[in-house]
C-alpha cells in the first residue's frame, strides 16, 4: 500500500502539471487566435480530463494512507507516529489530518475534489471554467510538490519496525476532532475556487459581473464551512483544553479567523458590484487577500515563525510556503496591473448615508479587525527585530483592542440593513432608528438596574454596550422583517409567520442575510457573558461540597479505571440546585499509554443561562484528594445557538428565490420536451 500511495501522488503531480501546462497553452492559443497541431479546444479538454484524473490519483493516495492506518502498518513512519493498535476506528480516520504530511494530503485531496466539481460543471461557462481550472491546477501542483518532495506521507521506517505505534495526540481524541479539521480545511481550501475564478476573470477581461454569480455559491458554501470549522474548533477547545474558555487568541486560531473576516467582507462588498457595478478592484483584492491569508495562516503555524499551543512542529516547509506566496502575490499584482482598466466603474456613491457607504464602512471595520489580528500575531516577531526581545500578545491585548472594533462591527450589522440604496433621507433614518435606539437604551438602563455596573469593570462596560447594541440590531432587523411581512400579509391575507416565511423565500438572499446577522448578534450575546464568569477551586474529599452561583456540588466518590487505550482518574459529583439534584457530573483526567501524556475530560452541565463547567485538576500529592475546579460560565450556549442560526440563514440565502424558481418551472412547462433536450447541450 505505501508504494501504491507514493505512486498515486507522483501520478497526481504529473497530471496536475499537465493540466496546468496544457490548459495554459490552450488558453493562450484561444486568446491569440493561433492554433497548434492540436486544436486549442481539444487541448483544453485533455487538460480538463487530466484534472479529473488527478482527483482519482490523490483519492487513491488518501485511501492508501487510511488503509495503512486501519491495518496498523507501522512500516509507514506517519502511521507509526500518529496511531496505535488500541486507537478506536474513528480516530484512526482522524489520523489522516493529525500530522503535517497527512494534513497536507487532506488539503490536496479536498482541493482535487473542489477541482473535480468545477471541471464537471464546466458547461456553466466553458472558457471561464477553463481559466479557473488551470489556476486551480497550479495551486494543486504546489501541494503535490510538497507531498512528493518535502512532506512525504509514505516515508518508510528504517531498521526494525516497532510492534505498536506511538498513538494519536490525546488532544485530538475527541469526537469533534473527527469533523473540525476537515470542516476548517473545506473552508480554507474552498477559497481557492473563488480566487481561481477572480484571477481567471481578470486575466481574460471577463465582461460584466456574471463570474460573480457563478462563484457566489462557491464563496458562500466555503464561508459556511469555514464558519462551522472555526466554531467546532472553539467548542473543542472549550470541551477539551479545560481552561474554561473557547477562544485563546492563539496564532492557529487567529490564522483561521483572518480569512474568515476578509471572506465576510467580500460577501458584503460583492453585492455592491452586483447591484451597482462598484468596487470591482476592491473585490478582486479582497478575494486575493482571502486566499493569501489561508496560505499565510498555514505558513505562520508550520514554519515556527510564531509559537502556538497547537502541536504543529517547526518544519522546513515554511520556505516552500514563502516561495509559493511570493509567486502568487506576483501573479496577482502583475495580472491586476495589466488589466486594471477593465475594473473601472462608472458609478459613484451618491450619499454618505446610504446602503453603499454602510457596506464600505463594514468592509473597513472587517479589514481593520483582520489587520489587528495579523498585527497581534506578528508583533512579537517585529518587537524582537526592533528592540531585541519578544513580547507576548496574549488575550488581554486582544480583548482590549479587538473588542471595541467588534462592537463597532455589531453596530454596523444593525445599521446597514435599514439604510436605502443610493441615499437615505433624514426622515427615513429617524423613522427606522427610533425604535431600535429606544430598545438599546432601555436594555442599558434595565441592565444597570439589575446590577451591571459598567464603571466598575472594563468587561462589564463592554458587556453592557454589547447587550444594548444587540437589542438595537435585533429590533432594527425584526422591524425590517415585520414591515416586509406586513406588506405580504396585506396582499395575501396569510398570518404573520407564513408571510415572513414567504418574504424570506421571495428574496432569500436578502432575508437569509438578515437571519445570519441575527445569528451573529446571538453569538455576541454569548461572548459578552464572559464578563460575568465565576470560578472556584477546591480539594474535594467524599461527602464534601463546593458552592458556586446557585449550584452545590457534592462529591460522591473518586476512583481510577483503565482500558487498553488509557488510564483514567475521575470524581463523581452530584449537582444540586435549591436542594434538588439536577445532574451528576464525572470530570476526569486520562493518561494515554501510547503517547505517555495526560488529558483533561471536562464535565459540563449546559443550560441557556449558564454552563456549569467542571475540571478534574489532579490529586494533591500531600492529601491524596482530588482538586476540582468549577467554572460558572454565563450564556455560553447562546454562542452555539447563534451558530445554528447563522447556518440556517446561510442555507436560506443559498436557496433560489421563490419567484425565480416558479418562473423556471413555468418556463420548463411551456418549452416542449424535445426543444428542452436539444437545448441542454448549450
Amino acid at each position: 500500500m505505501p508504494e501504491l500511495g507514493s505512486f498515486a501522488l507522483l501520478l497526481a503531480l504529473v497530471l496536475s502539471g499537465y493540466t496546468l501546462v496544457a490548459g495554459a497553452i490552450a488558453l493562450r492559443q484561444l486568446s491569440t487566435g493561433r492554433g497548434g497541431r492540436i486544436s486549442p479546444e481539444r487541448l483544453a479538454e485533455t487538460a480538463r480530463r487530466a484534472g479529473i484524473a488527478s482527483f482519482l490519483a490523490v483519492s487513491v493516495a488518501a485511501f492508501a494512507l487510511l488503509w495503512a492506518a486501519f491495518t496498523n502498518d507501522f512500516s509507514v513512519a506517519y502511521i507509526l507516529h500518529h496511531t496505535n493498535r488500541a486507537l478506536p476506528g474513528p480516530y484512526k480516520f482522524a489520523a489522516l489530518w493529525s500530522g503535517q504530511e497527512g494534513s497536507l494530503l487532506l488539503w490536496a485531496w479536498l482541493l482535487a475534489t473542489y477541482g473535480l466539481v468545477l471541471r464537471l460543471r464546466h458547461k456553466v461557462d466553458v472558457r471561464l471554467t477553463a481559466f479557473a481550472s488551470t489556476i486551480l491546477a497550479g495551486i494543486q501542483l504546489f501541494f503535490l510538490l510538497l507531498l512528493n518532495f518535502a512532506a512525504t506521507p509514505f516515508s518508510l521506517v528504517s531498521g526494525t519496525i516497532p510492534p505498536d505505534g506511538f498513538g494519536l495526540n490525546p488532544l485530538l481524541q475527541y469526537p469533534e476532532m473527527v469533523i473540525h479539521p476537515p470542516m476548517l480545511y473545506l473552508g480554507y481550501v474552498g477559497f481557492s475556487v473563488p480566487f481561481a475564478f477572480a484571477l481567471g476573470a481578470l486575466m481574460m477581461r471577463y465582461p460584466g459581473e456574471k463570474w460573480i454569480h457563478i462563484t457566489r455559491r462557491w464563496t458562500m458554501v466555503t464561508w459556511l464551512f469555514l464558519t462551522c470549522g472555526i466554531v467546532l474548533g472553539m467548542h473543542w477547545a472549550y470541551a477539551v483544553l479545560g481552561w474554561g474558555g473557547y477562544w485563546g487568541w492563539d496564532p492557529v486560531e487567529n490564522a483561521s479567523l483572518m480569512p474568515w473576516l476578509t471572506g465576510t467582507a467580500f460577501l458584503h462588498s460583492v453585492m455592491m458590484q452586483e447591484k451597482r457595478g462598484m468596487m470591482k478592484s476592491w473585490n478582486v483584492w479582497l478575494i486575493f487577500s482571502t486566499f493569501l491569508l489561508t496560505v499565510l495562516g498555514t505558513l505562520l503555524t508550520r514554519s515556527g515563525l510564531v509559537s502556538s499551543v497547537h502541536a504543529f512542529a517547526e518544519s522546513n516547509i515554511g520556505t516552500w510556503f514563502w516561495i509559493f506566496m511570493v509567486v502568487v502575490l506576483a501573479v496577482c499584482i502583475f495580472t491586476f496591473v495589466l488589466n486594471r482598466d477593465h475594473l473601472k466603474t462608472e458609478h459613484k456613491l451618491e450619499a454618505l448615508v446610504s446602503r453603499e457607504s454602510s457596506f464600505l464602512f463594514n468592509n473597513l471595520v472587517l479589514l481593520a479587525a483582520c489587520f489587528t489580528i495579523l498585527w497581534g500575531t506578528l508583533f512579537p516577531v517585529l518587537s524582537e527585530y526592533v528592540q531585541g526581545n519578544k513580547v507576548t500578545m496574549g488575550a488581554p491585548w486582544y480583548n482590549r483592542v479587538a473588542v471595541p472594533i467588534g462592537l463597532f462591527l455589531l453596530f454596523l450589522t444593525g445599521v446597514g440593513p435599514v439604510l436605502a440604496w443610493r441615499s437615505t433621507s433624514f426622515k427615513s433614518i429617524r423613522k427606522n432608528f427610533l425604535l431600535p435606539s429606544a430598545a438599546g437604551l432601555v436594555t442599558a438602563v434595565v441592565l444597570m438596574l439589575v446590577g451591571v455596573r459598567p464603571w466598575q469593570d472594563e468587561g462589564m462596560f463592554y458587556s453592557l454596550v454589547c447587550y444594548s447594541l444587540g437589542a438595537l440590531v435585533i429590533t432594527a432587523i425584526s422591524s425590517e422583517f415585520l414591515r416586509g411581512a406586513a406588506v405580504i400579509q396585506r396582499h395575501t391575507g396569510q398570518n404573520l409567520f407564513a408571510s415572513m416565511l414567504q418574504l424570506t423565500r421571495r428574496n432569500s438572499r436578502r432575508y437569509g442575510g438578515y437571519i445570519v446577522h441575527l445569528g451573529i448578534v446571538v453569538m455576541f450575546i454569548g461572548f459578552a457573558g464572559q464578563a460575568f464568569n465565576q470560578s472556584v477551586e477546591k480539594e474535594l474529599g467524599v461527602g464534601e461540597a463546593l458552592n458556586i452561583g446557585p449550584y452545590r456540588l457534592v462529591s460522591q466518590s473518586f476512583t481510577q479505571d483503565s482500558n487498553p487505550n488509557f488510564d483514567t482518574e475521575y470524581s463523581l459529583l452530584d449537582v444540586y440546585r435549591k436542594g434538588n439534584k439536577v445532574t451528576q457530573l464525572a470530570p476526569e483526567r486520562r493518561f494515554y499509554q501510547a503517547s505517555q501524556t495526560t488529558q483533561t475530560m471536562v464535565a459540563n452541565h449546559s443550560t441557556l443561562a449558564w454552563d456549569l463547567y467542571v475540571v478534574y485538576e489532579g490529586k494533591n500529592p500531600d492529601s491524596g484528594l482530588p482538586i476540582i475546579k468549577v467554572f460558572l460560565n454565563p450564556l455560553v450556549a447562546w454562542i452555539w445557538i447563534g451558530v445554528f442560526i447563522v447556518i440556517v440563514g446561510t442555507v436560506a440565502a443559498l436557496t433560489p428565490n421563490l419567484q425565480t424558481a416558479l418562473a423556471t418551472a413555468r418556463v420548463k412547462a411551456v418549452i416542449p420536451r424535445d426543444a428542452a433536450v436539444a437545448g441542454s447541450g448549450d
Partner: protein
Amino acid sequence: MFRSRAVSRKNGFTRIAQLSVLAIIVALTTAAADPTARFDKLGHQLMCSCGCNQILLECNHVGCPLSDGMRHELMAGVDKGDNDSLIFQSFVQKYGPTVLAAPGGTGFNIVAWIMPFAVLLLGIGGTAMLIRRWRLRSVPMPLPSTVSRFGDIRERIRRETEI
C-alpha cells in the same frame, strides 16, 4: 426667585455629580483593595513561563514545574501590598518580558496598542473623504417638481420592488 431656584438646581446637580464620582471611586478602590480580586486580576495579566503559552491562572497541565511557584510569588506580592508595576517588574526581572500577557505601555511597545486604532481611524477618515469626493463628482438627480412627496414614493417603490 427664578434665579435662586436655578442656582439651587445647579448646586443639586453638582452635588449629585460629586456623589457619583465619589461612589465610582469607592467602588473602584473597594474592588482594588480586595486581595483575592487583585490576585485574580493580576494573575490574568501574566503568562505561565513553562512554555505552555497559557495565562498564569489558567495553566492547568499536570506537573507544571512553574505555575504553582509563580502563583505563590504573586500572592506574596499582593499580600505585601506591592503596587502592580512593582509586582510586574519583579516578574519581568525573573522570567523575562514574555511573562507579561500584553506588552507594556512604554517604548516601542506603545506601537502595539496604537497601530490598530490608528489604522481604523485612518480608514474611516479616508473612506469618508472618498465618499465626499465621489459625491462632489456625481451629478445630483433633480427631483421632479410636479410630483409631491417624491421621497416617500421612492421609498415605497424601493420597499415594494425589493420584496
